[in-house]
């Protein structure tokens, strides 16, 4: 049994417009040193899936820069490895092929060569807005054993533990694990089972899906492929029990990041046996804590210099926190420089932000104050 992976890097770009103006969803920085795509990629590599296509759409410079030739995921291979699949736009009029894709099915049409040529038995599809550490081998085994047409990794969320600001696939699953209903909506209350959008399908079936979609002009993967087939074909749910979070807005990004300060989430994601999360190596020096540093309940990357107070924060690489400065409940991205005697609360800074001495900035956990890339306050 062999499997290839296909990652959709742009599908949810509208979720966090603040951060995706200059990058894809896949390349949003997350958890001190990662980008969202690291989870999808690492899950695949950790499950011996070493033939991975990344479907891109627009703004994919930062993604190309991050992924490179894939060597940080041990995916710089002669056969297989990482393939970036840019939009398939030709110079000729050719309806359907010369425009950027607008949905998942069209994206798959652009990847048709990869699907046809990768030569594996199965394909694992994954998005970039989910954060989890999962053994895909078990999903694949489950898929093969059940003889299902498609297996979707699902997550049960308890009431009150989630907040979605855009529709997600809400599923109904029967006792045998068969998905009997799929609805794209914004769940508001009660326990729900949602799709993580990680799916397994045989390559032959995916080829049929794509050619069928081209022939019949189908548009929606969820409506036309999944929902319509729920009665005819066995589409199964694979229940994922580990730590999970999905990012659907800036507030959701903030909340999800802060969840990393809880031991369980952090351990499940980052200290899960041999299944580590890989990312591009930057060779930052270790983080320096000055004599005046007061750091509590925070997660920090390497390369930081901390001279002030840091509480409940997520600090990315090479962040500087000056003397007398108090930073609480903040997410400071790579190369953020905070001068002396500043006071920050519930602030998210994008890369390379400079906050000068004595500045006072505050947001709220439901509405974090966001400062865009390269801005100076």
């Amino acid at each position, binding site marked *: 049994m062999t499997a290839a992976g296909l990652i959709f890097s742009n599908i949810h770009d509208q979720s966090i417009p603040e951060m995706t103006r200059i990058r894809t969803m896949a390349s949003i920085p997350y958890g001190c040193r990662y980008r969202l795509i690291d989870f999808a990629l690492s899950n695949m590599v950790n499950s011996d899936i070493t033939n991975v296509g990344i479907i891109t759409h627009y703004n994919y410079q930062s993604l190309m820069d991050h992924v490179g030739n894939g060597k940080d995921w041990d995916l710089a291979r002669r056969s297989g490895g990482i393939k970036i699949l840019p939009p398939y736009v030709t110079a000729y009029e050719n309806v359907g092929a010369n425009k950027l894709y607008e949905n998942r099915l069209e994206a798959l049409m652009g990847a048709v060569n990869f699907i046809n040529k990768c030569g594996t038995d199965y394909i694992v599809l994954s998005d970039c807005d989910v954060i989890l550490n999962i053994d895909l081998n078990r999903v694949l085994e489950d898929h093969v054993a059940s003889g299902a047409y498609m297996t979707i990794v699902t997550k049960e969320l308890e009431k009150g533990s989630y907040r979605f600001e855009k529709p997600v696939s809400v599923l109904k699953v029967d006792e045998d694990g068969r998905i009997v209903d799929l609805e794209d909506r914004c769940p508001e209350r009660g326990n729900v089972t949602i799709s993580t959008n990680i799916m397994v399908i045989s390559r032959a079936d995916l080829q049929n899906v794509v050619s069928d979609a081209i022939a019949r002009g189908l548009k929606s993967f969820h409506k036309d492929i999944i929902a319509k087939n729920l009665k005819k074909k066995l589409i199964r749910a694979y229940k994922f029990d580990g730590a999970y979070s999905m990012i659907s807005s800036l507030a959701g990004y903030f909340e999800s990041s802060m969840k990393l300060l809880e031991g369980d989430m952090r351990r499940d994601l980052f200290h899960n046996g041999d299944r580590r*999360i890989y990312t591009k190596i930057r060779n930052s020096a270790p*983080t320096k*804590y000055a004599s005046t540093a007061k750091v509590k309940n925070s997660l920090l990357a390497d390369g930081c210099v901390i001279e002030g107070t840091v509480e409940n924060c997520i600090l990315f690489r090479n962040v500087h926190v000056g003397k007398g400065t108090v930073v609480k409940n903040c997410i400071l991205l790579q190369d953020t420089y905070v001068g002396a005697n500043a006071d920050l609360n519930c602030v998210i800074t994008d890369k390379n932000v400079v906050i000068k001495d004595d500045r006072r900035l505050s947001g709220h956990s439901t509405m974090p104050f966001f400062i865009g890339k390269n801005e100076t306050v």
Partner: protein
Amino acid sequence: MFKKKECVAMLLAGGQGSRLYALTQKTAKPSVSFGGKYRIIDFTLSNCINSGLDTVGVLTQYQPLLLNDYIGNGLPWDLDRTFGGVKILPPYQGNQHADWYKGTANAIWQNMEFINRYDAKYVLILSGDHIYKMNYAKMLDFHKQTGADCSIAVIDVPIEEASRFGIMSTNEDGSIYKFSEKPKNPDSTKASMGIYIFTKDKLQKYLEEDSKNPDSANDFGKNIIPNMLAAGEKMMAYPFEGYWKDVGTIRSLWEANMDLLGEQPALSLLDEGWRIFSRHGAEAPQFVGEDAIVENSSITAGADICGIVRNSVLGPDVVVEQGAIVEDSVLMTGVTVKAGATVRYSILDENVTVGQNATVGEYRMTASEVTVIGADVTVPDGTKVPAGSMISEM
């Protein structure tokens, strides 16, 4: 580019480092951890690539396994090249001889073919047990400009310490007229840093002569340099200013680690223009817990700190549990200090576990010597390890 290299670097990494005792039981000195996420050899390798030298032979002999693994194909240092790059050179069986490396000069002599394969005009000889940042390209320019046969990098040391080093006595133009190995009454403060650039033809000539002398120690400092001086070759001292430390002893290794701390550290690794590269795993970000106190310390990826850490350098994946105290210490990769344990003025090698309420070392003010615990040792709960101990098994 694919036929010739102007200068090839040869890095002597075979030394046992016996004065590091417990730390070099299982590995060679160049692969001993330093500064949290580095190994000693990272500094020389990074200096090479940062100086634009992309062909480095690493001569190994003593306990090379970890070093082989660590260097691998050279990727972390950007030294994975089609032509050149980093190559591990262990002793080998030849047509005429099969020998261990008998001395530093003999090691290079046995690998003359490697140097000639790149048709190198100059050879840079380095040792893998010093911590420093140096641009070898500048030294090579100096070597070419002065037309020297051999250039030796020297650093000014306090006169009272000069008798610990190889001392160069120089004329005003920097040319060397006398070399004395560890002189009792030094007449100069220019100490050799063990970094040499030779014009290859001269090097080959003297190595060949030396190889034919059965009484020779086959050592650069003892034989090659004095022989060249005696023969009147042009020997130049290249003055180096900056941080340089031989980390050959426990004390100096501890000091060099501490030099990374403080507001104006003697050695800064945050210099983006001269980065030190290292091979590392996929460690998670470091976590500092609710009750933790971290002051004047350097901490790196994967660490989980819930106790108190002061004036210390911690490596990847170090765990300091609640109520544990770590002060004035160097903790290498994967060290765990359990709840209530105390570690003071110590070096703990990789994967050491200090059990609950155990005590290792003493306050720096009262302790005689640094306490050292070798790799993979577990200090049982409640045990007291006295200051100055050197433990490789427990």
